[in-house]
């Protein structure tokens, strides 16, 4: 069972040197890719998996804003046809500020997109250049106001910190500029150098060029302070939102809702086995095309989770949310009290000041968020 759809659009005008995600370099999305997405969606609809009207649809990438608005409209129409769409469904499009203008934005809005996630990354041109982005700060701000004009009342922006050459003051300036445009949502994350990227070649042996962990930690804390004083809720380790504007689709990942991933390299999580099943589509363009043309879903690495797997996930996903994990919810899901499984671990972390345990819930403290990997890895079997 799934209530959400993720569509992966693995195409970019140029590949950013820090990014490890599946994407190829093109000017526009090839026409047949939309056809493949539609065909794949129809194959998925024929699965015995149950579905209820969709709560959210998310176009991610890559650069989904390279899609033609008409393609988006077709996809959404078919999704509604096949699965139904909840009345207040959240339909997000990730947009690169360098690929949109007022007209396209209006067309996306008209096609049914009601939430925009703008890949701003930084509002400092020097840092944007380091990141290899195709847009400037000016373009990002323009894109934002164009989106407002186009009627988007729910816009999120992404910001990255702990960038090479970035000082705490530069980060503060980014945050302040971001506040001025008042997005409903901010994704704020520290740069991580991923294996296999040009950044890994550049920085793996030159770590001194990157902000050290103390500075990175201070940047994280600065974002928390600045944004929460301006009315944003720090609702997830890397996400802030004005009240009522949390990303429902992304929250679904942390709550282990079922979702169908469509497109090359997309990930799927189905809730039809007792503890769920994860799989991912092949990232290979030819394999992806051939299998769909042959009427098969291009799934790889299918993993039917055990209760132990699921408990581990439940902990390290649930604790990402500021609300943490409710003891009742855990026991309802697994039929055993959380304390019985992880009591020793959670109490240990509570003592160390990384977790906070109340009568009903356990959640990360702010320091715990910064050290969340240390906490999460203790929930692995």
């Amino acid at each position, binding site marked *: 069972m799934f209530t959400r759809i*993720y569509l*992966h659009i693995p195409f970019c005008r140029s590949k950013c040197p820090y990014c490890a*995600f599946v994407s190829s370099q093109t000017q526009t999305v090839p026409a047949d890719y939309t056809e493949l997405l539609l065909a794949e969606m129809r194959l998925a609809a024929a699965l015995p998996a149950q579905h209820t009207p969709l709560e959210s649809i*998310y176009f*991610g990438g890559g650069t989904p804003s390279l899609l033609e608005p008409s393609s988006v409209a077709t996809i959404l129409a078919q999704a509604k046809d096949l699965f139904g769409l909840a009345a207040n469904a959240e339909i997000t499009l990730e947009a690169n500020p360098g690929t949109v203008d007022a007209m396209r934005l209006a067309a996306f809005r008209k096609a049914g997109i009601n939430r925009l996630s703008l890949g701003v990354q930084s509002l400092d041109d020097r840092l944007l250049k380091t990141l290899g982005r195709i847009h400037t700060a000016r373009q990002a701000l323009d894109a934002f106001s164009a989106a407002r004009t186009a009627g988007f009342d729910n816009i999120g922006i*992404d910001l990255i910190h702990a960038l090479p050459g970035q000082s705490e003051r530069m980060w503060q300036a980014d945050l302040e500029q971001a506040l001025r445009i008042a997005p409903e949502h901010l*994704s704020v*994350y*520290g*740069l*991580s150098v991923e294996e296999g990227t040009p950044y890994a070649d550049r920085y793996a042996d030159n770590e001194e060029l990157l902000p050290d*962990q*103390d500075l*990175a*930690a201070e940047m*994280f804390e600065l974002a928390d302070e600045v944004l929460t004083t301006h009315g944003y809720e720090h609702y997830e*380790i*890397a*996400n802030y939102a004005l009240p009522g504007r949390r990303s429902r689709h*992304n929250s679904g*990942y942390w709550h282990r809702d079922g*979702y169908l*991933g469509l497109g090359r390299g*997309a*990930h799927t*999580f189905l809730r039809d086995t007792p503890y769920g099943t*994860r799989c*991912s589509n092949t990232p290979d363009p030819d394999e992806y095309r051939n299998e769909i043309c042959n009427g098969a879903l291009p799934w790889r*690495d299918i*993993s039917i989770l055990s209760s132990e797997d699921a408990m*581990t*996930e439940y902990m*390290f*996903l649930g604790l990402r949310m500021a609300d943490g994990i409710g003891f009742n919810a855990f026991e309802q899901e697994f039929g055993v009290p959380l304390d019985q499984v992880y009591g020793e671990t959670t109490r240990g972390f509570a003592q*160390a000041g*990384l977790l906070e345990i109340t009568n009903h819930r356990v959640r990360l403290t702010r320091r715990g*968020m*910064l*050290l*969340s*990997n*240390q906490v*999460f*890895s203790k929930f*692995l079997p």
Partner: protein
Amino acid sequence: MDISRLRNFSIIAHIDHGKSTLADRLLEYTGTLSEREKQDQFLDKMDLERERGITIKAQTVRLNYRADDGNDYVLNLIDTPGHVDFTYEVSRSLSACEGGLLVVDASQGVEAQTLANVYLALDNNLEVFPVLNKIDLPAAEPERVMHEIEDIIGIDAHDAVFASAKEGIGIHEILEEIISKIPAPKGDMSAPLKALLFDSWYDQYQGVIILVRLFDGTLKKGDKIQLVRTGRTYEALKVGVFAPVMVEVPQLTAGEVGFIIAGIKDVADAKVGDTVTHFHRPCASPLAGFKEVKPMVFSGLYPIDTVQYEQLRDALAKLKLNDSSFSFEPETSVALGFGFRCGFLGLLHMEIIQERLEREFGLDLITTAPTVVYKVHRVTGEIQTIESANQLPELQNVEYLEEPFILAHIHVPNEFVGGVLALCEDKRGVQREIKYLTPTRVMIIYELPLNEIVLDFYDRLKSITKGYASLDYEHLDYRRSELVRMNIMINGEVVDALSLIIHRDKAYFRGRDLVSKMKELIPRQMFEVAIQAAIGNKVIARETVKAMRKDVLAKCYGGDITRKRKLLEKQKEGKKRMKNVGNVELPQEAFLAILKVE
């Protein structure tokens, strides 16, 4: 066997000068090694030996050769281990020979290790003739190296064989030289049996196999033999030679080299240097030069995961089967739990054993810093030997301490003399002699405390001399010394496995360097970690590893939860390689930090 048609020889060479390759070519040329058996460096059996290009256990092989004079000869190539830790084994192997090939790299010249072994050979009255190897290399300077051999070693090199073992050049000439230059062994095959045991190892199917060189007498299968030093008697169940695989022969006679399998259970009963004779008709006196080999360097070996303790014990026992020079005893550490205190001949021996334990037996180990054997003179007049800082008694019970000294021969190009002298002085050395072997080559002879050698002497020597120095040493004596115990405390708790015995004058600097090295090696933890060095109650150095501030994953794209989980798993795996001491996670390297200080 006609004794005049026998030749027993060994190859004397520095590591990397091509000894194993040359041995292979000799085997091939004489047809001893068929194409099918051919495998590079046949004589170095263990993977580790092949990788490091050094011989750990001596091997021996019989070659049949029809010489240019038309006669058939039997040549016994007796391989020698190539490292300072095994000098005694080398000397016993050499004493089984009448001659030696001195193999010198024609581009590099004579090295200290070669020199030490040549002197051992000359001490054993071997006929030594030089072979210039790697003559095909563009950098080869045969003239210079020939002069060097004459100047440094004092043997005639004007008719040295030019060879390239790699290219198969000069192999025939070498074989002819062996026939003409090396004397045939002497001996009386009807005299009472007198044979030198020059190597032994354990074979899981046949028990202990011993290699012998007969000096007098005849040995047949079924003979009742006695090992003179241990006094034990055995029946010679099998008698044979390596050609290169084991072949039984009806008998071995004076001058020959071969193996005996005699149902010996423990390799410790087959001591290298012992004399083998007949029980019923023993020789008048045993062969001279026997020495009991004792471990000189000790360190603690602990499994990172305590469940591997039994496996470690079994693995040590297995290695011990083949190596009586290595010892182990259970030891308990407050910090590391149950482990073993192990004794080695030297640092290389220690590294080899550790590497085999990790590689062949799949163990994850913590090794504590190597230490030497100290003598404690108690106020009561008793003398106690200790192999670990933790065995040092309370100071009020100690009158004084003694530490072992060695005599080091360091061979360097003259431009490095200043640096090496400074190093030796820094290591509390006492200068004996500086010899200019040639205008550019210098032999520096120093008396040094072994305790300084086992720490970082060799690494520093190499870095000071850009790798051009070579070192050889022998044990001298014990000397009274101002030694103290230095403790390392992690968050206020003494970590016994890190304690060391150190010279009082060195303690302050060592302590300071050690804690700062440990600060680099210990990753940031979820709390601050204080590292202190102390002598008695006095803290002499302190460093702090700051608490970890940030360890968080970037945002999740498109619901790829599997990737997140894998990253967490990787992190957890990394922690398994750490040892928990109290609540601090210490990496393996932290326990050897003392070896890494500048």
